[in-house]
């Protein structure tokens, strides 16, 4: 319905891609059973709400009778009774409204609390999923599970899909009451009912389809617009503004027309219900006129009561069909949430010490023995890697990008599980540690430093709830970065920052340069003061001033700790007690700088080249360019 010409291949592929999954069931006992544990703690509130619902339905059923009675008292001219009924009617209305509030609020309270618990559960799962799960799942999708999908489920309570029970009761009650009052008149009123039912069914079905269409198109429209904004420079550089505008127009027209369709069916439904309600009243009047000639039981009061019942009858009909739609989307939300909660790829618990392999020597800081590892099956990253470090030793990993150096660091922290071999930290197999206890032994300075939104302080004292300002400042001073951040803070102080520690950090630390982020990570490591240090030297380019600063800071961080440095700079490599040369997942050489030079292997060759180079007058320049060696 969107475009006039037959869609191209890409368009077909896109449509297929953007199609929402098959329409879910509106009722799925399995999903409801799984929701129950979250709802059970709040079951009392729900019971209260449902009980109130019954009371409200009963009162609503009585109201038309009372209205008829008012009219009847007027007819028999008894002002006293009229007064009584008037007050009764007033009370009834106020009480009903009060109860409605109680009913809705208790239901939502139960629902919102259950959903908060469900979100906590999802968050707990997130913290336990293995890292490899994150390697293959976009973050946005996971955020959607805990936000939008849970919100869809909460509509069960918020918009009262459970209140459908009340609607059904009201319908049945009204039919029974009318039949009891006058079965012939009731028969006339409900003459049109099957027709109405059929119309509502058809129109609502189309309206639902239109609504789903609108949702899918909304997603596509916003995604398209978002991409145009984010990829604006590509669009402009390729001069595709007009083409993109035309493509967007198809999406925009599709969105508009889907909405028009939805509006049309909604308007139709409302108008049909209003029309039929008038038709019913007209038929009653017609029939009453015909019968009143010989049947005095047809009174004005009866007509009033019937009219009120008819008006009340059509309200739940239109509500019920709306609730059906919500129920469907709640079920598909629940489906996705529980599919996530069923994820089995979670971190294994710590093994008992005796279940692990033999402990290492007393002075061993960490060791890898015959470690095999692959991220993707069939693509080995580490093969038979063995090396170890004594306490206080400084180890440098050297090798080309992709040789597996960074992976070694991840395995020591047990972020991933090796397929073969054993890894020990401080003499104990990593599987014997509770993961968090293991990781507390390490300070990590990653290559690409991730900063959390907050302040410099909160990022340095990353693991502390109550940050120690003194220690954080001392950490910055020791790496010689305090005045650097103070200077920066001077610029930021419009935001009210008073110290280097209070400078604001934006999302992902995007308001800090790569060098500054690196320095922050060093400060973080000093503040943490863990016995083992893993440092992935940055290859990113920084200016020479920052470069010199980083070199000094690195020395300061390494001092007094066992360290594993994924090294890119010769100065760092040379200063190591032991150098491990990696090539394509294998350890090809191990030894001190002198030993490796003597051996005359790969490292010696590398070093000779570098040394000859440094002999030239380019020593100063080299510092800059070296980092770009591997890119």
């Amino acid at each position: 319905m969107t475009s006039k010409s037959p869609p191209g291949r890409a368009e077909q592929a896109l449509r297929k891609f953007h199609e929402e999954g098959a329409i879910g069931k509106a009722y799925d006992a399995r999903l409801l059973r799984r929701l129950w544990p979250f709802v059970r703690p709040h079951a009392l509130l729900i019971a209260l709400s449902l009980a109130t619902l019954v009371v409200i339905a009963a009162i609503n059923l009585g109201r038309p009778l009372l209205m008829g009675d008012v009219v009847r008292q007027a007819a028999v001219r008894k002002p006293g009774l009229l007064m009584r009924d008037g007050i009764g009617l007033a009370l009834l209305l106020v009480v009903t409204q009060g109860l409605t509030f109680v009913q809705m609020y208790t239901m939502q309270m139960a629902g919102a609390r259950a959903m908060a618990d469900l979100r906590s559960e999802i968050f707990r799962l997130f913290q336990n999923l293995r890292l490899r799960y994150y390697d293959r799942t976009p973050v946005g999708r996971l955020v959607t599970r805990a936000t939008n999908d849970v919100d869809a489920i909460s509509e069960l309570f918020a918009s009262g899909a459970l209140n459908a029970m009340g609607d059904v009761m009201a319908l049945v009650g009204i039919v029974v009451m009318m039949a009891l009052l006058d079965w012939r008149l009731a028969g006339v009123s409900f003459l049109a009912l099957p027709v109405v039912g059929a119309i509502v069914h058809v129109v609502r079905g189309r309206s639902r389809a239109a609504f789903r269409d609108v949702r899918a198109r909304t997603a596509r429209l916003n995604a398209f617009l978002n991409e145009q904004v984010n990829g604006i420079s590509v669009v402009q550089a390729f001069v595709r503004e007009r083409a993109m505008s035309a493509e967007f127009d198809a999406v925009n027209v599709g969105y508009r027309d889907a909405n028009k369709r939805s509006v049309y069916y909604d308007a139709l439904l409302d108008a049909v219900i209003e029309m039929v309600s008038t038709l019913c009243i007209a038929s009653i009047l017609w029939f009453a006129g015909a019968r009143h000639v010989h049947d005095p039981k047809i009174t004005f009061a009866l007509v009033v009561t019937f009219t009120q019942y008819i008006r009340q009858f059509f309200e739940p009909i239109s509500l019920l069909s709306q609730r059906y739609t919500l129920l469907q989307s709640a079920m598909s939300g629940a489906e996705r949430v529980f599919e996530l909660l069923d994820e089995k790829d979670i971190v294994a618990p710590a093994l008992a010490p005796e279940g692990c392999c033999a402990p290492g020597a007393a002075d061993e800081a960490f060791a890898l023995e015959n470690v095999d590892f692959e991220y993707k099956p069939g693509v080995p990253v580490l093969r038979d890697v063995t090396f170890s470090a004594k306490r206080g030793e400084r180890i440098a990993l050297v090798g080309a990008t992709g040789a597996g150096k960074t992976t070694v660091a991840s395995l020591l922290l047990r972020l991933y599980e090796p397929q073969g071999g054993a890894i020990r930290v401080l003499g104990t197999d990593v599987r014997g540690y509770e993961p968090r206890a293991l990781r507390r032994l390490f300070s990590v300075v990653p290559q690409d430093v991730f900063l959390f939104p907050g302040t410099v302080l909160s990022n340095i004292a990353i693991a502390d709830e109550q940050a120690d300002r003194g220690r954080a400042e001392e950490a910055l001073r020791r790496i010689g970065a305090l005045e650097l951040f103070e200077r920066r803070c001077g610029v930021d102080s419009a935001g009210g920052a008073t110290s280097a520690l209070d400078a604001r950090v934006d999302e992902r630390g995007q308001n800090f340069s790569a060098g500054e982020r690196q320095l922050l990570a060093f400060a973080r490591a000093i503040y943490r003061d863990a016995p083992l240090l893993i440092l992935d030297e940055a290859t990113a380019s920084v200016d020479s001033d920052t470069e010199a600063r980083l070199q000094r800071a690195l020395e300061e961080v390494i001092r007094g700790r066992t360290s594993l440095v994924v090294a890119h700079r010769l100065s760092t490599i040379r200063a190591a007690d032991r150098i491990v040369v990696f090539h394509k997942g294998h350890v090809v050489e191990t030894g001190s700088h002198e030993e490796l030079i003597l051996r005359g292997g790969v490292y010696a060759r590398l070093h000779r080249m570098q040394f000859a180079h440094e002999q030239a007058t380019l020593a100063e320049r080299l510092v800059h360019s070296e980092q770009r060696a591997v890119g």
Partner: protein
Amino acid sequence: MPTGSSIYRFWRSKAAVTSAAHPDRAYPTTLRGQFRRHGPQYAIGTLTLAVSQLAMNRIDWKSKVAIDAIFGPAPATAWKPAALMLLLAVAAFVARVASRWFVFNAGRDAEYELRFELLRKLHQLGAAFYRKMPAGEIMSRSTSDLQQVRLLFGFGILNVLNVVFVFASALQIMLRVSPQLTLACLVNLPLVALVSRTISGQMFRRMRENQAALGHMSDVLQANLAGVRVVRSFALEERERQRFEQTNREYLNASLALAKLRGSFGPVIGSVAAIGVIIFFWYGSTLLLRGEGQGGVTQGSFFAFWSAFSRMTWPMISIGFAVSVVQRGRAGFGRLRDVFDAEPEVVDGPRRAPKHVSGSLTVDNLSFCHGARVVLDHVSLKVTPGESLAIVGRTGSGKTTLAMLLARLLPTPAGAVRIDGIDVCELPLASLRSAIGYAQQDAFLFSTTVSRNIGFALDDPDTSAAQERIREAAREAQVLEETLSLSEGFDTVVGERGVQLSGGQKQRIALARALVWEPKILILDDPLSAVDAKTESSILEAIERQAAARTVLLITHRVAAAARCDRIIVLDEGKVVEQGTHDELTRSGGIYAAFAVEQQMASELEEIAPPASAPLAIPVEASAT
């Protein structure tokens, strides 16, 4: 509903005629202009609304006639007004649907047109605007603010009109039956409007707070998941849990506060409105009791009054809503104007597009600043048609800025850059940018098929000739085999919501996109940063083939790539510091020579013979953790 969809199709066919896609049309971007543009729709909407309310008015009156007949002297004649009621009900139905259709659709049309204009404006705006207004902010304007404007144009206007007509139609009956009763029943009307206005105002505020709390929670979640490696490495799970639980609690409280208000809306309004109903039944019954002779009312009048009065309840409540909708619509429109009124910094030059571009490029004393920082400092260079030039330099040396200035993707100073001797600022943007093709560093792909991404520059990417070119470009960029191994081949949807590609794959697809393009001067900005050495040399050959047909500027920090170009310039801190061929520069012992030595070492490392056990191929992407 057979007639339903046929009526719908009828309207659809009419609507389709008025919306034939044409990229050059312009729509008004002011509130007044939009109102005027959709005037006919509003006029028909007003008319049909009037008709439907007139019918309702007559229905009420016929019910009076019928009831007075039934309970009066001639019950047998009651069928006449009853039959009329049936007909009127059908008329009211048709008019009502039509009124909704026209007014709501006017709102949808206004929304559509404003969104169309919005994207057109966004396409014109340059870097200065996007630095000032982040993507999230732009998106919030084009979604929620635009939605408010649409509500103003549709729901808001319908409600204002509806209130007028319902009041007219109902009051006519009520006043005719009894002015005193009317006055008595409407005594609480101002109160209903006031209460609904107050509560709806508060409700919108709470809804915003609720949205903000949800946004805060997803931000925390987003940071936690994006930083999952840091969280694990530093054992921050407990701190993160507390952080999340706090936002989770805040969201719970916000949604309960909203629920409380939303839950009380009905009851409070209902109670206030109920005052009117009670007055009616009480006082109305008294009048009924009095009988028509003594200033009372008949049963029919009582019934008609009741039915007219019932019709007024919703419009009374909606006055408050409509006021809020109008206010928020105007505020939302104000924020949209920030985009509509922004001035594009780069605009078309006065000259006509030249018929032929030979591809010579002159840069003369080009300087450029980002705020106070000097990015380019008196850069001059010359490229002859068909020549290939490498621009080498450290990160931050100004390479990318230089390239973007050539194609006027940034505000290029007048007179500094000439193509075939013509100042680029004098040319129409479209013709300039088609002549100077800049393929950016960051491999941004669109969420569409691989085929569409590669054929981005093509007007008709679905023809078989185009498909062949796309395939060929993929082969040249060394991404053909990987593409074919995807689940749907070239028709696989990629991007955030589609198949996740590695950095290297994305970069090669982006390169293929540039290769399909074939502008006279092609600028490739660091197209190989995430590509491994072996693939690199194959790609370089493809680039060399390109260079045979056009002028190529290659921005790179790889000596292997630069060496293949005819000439190399080296940028440092915004200045051209070295210039010459590969051989000249390696001999001169400058920055370039340092690069060369350094990279020779790196390739040395890559080429060490693997140990005897097993030769292993490790893709760069797989281990980038």
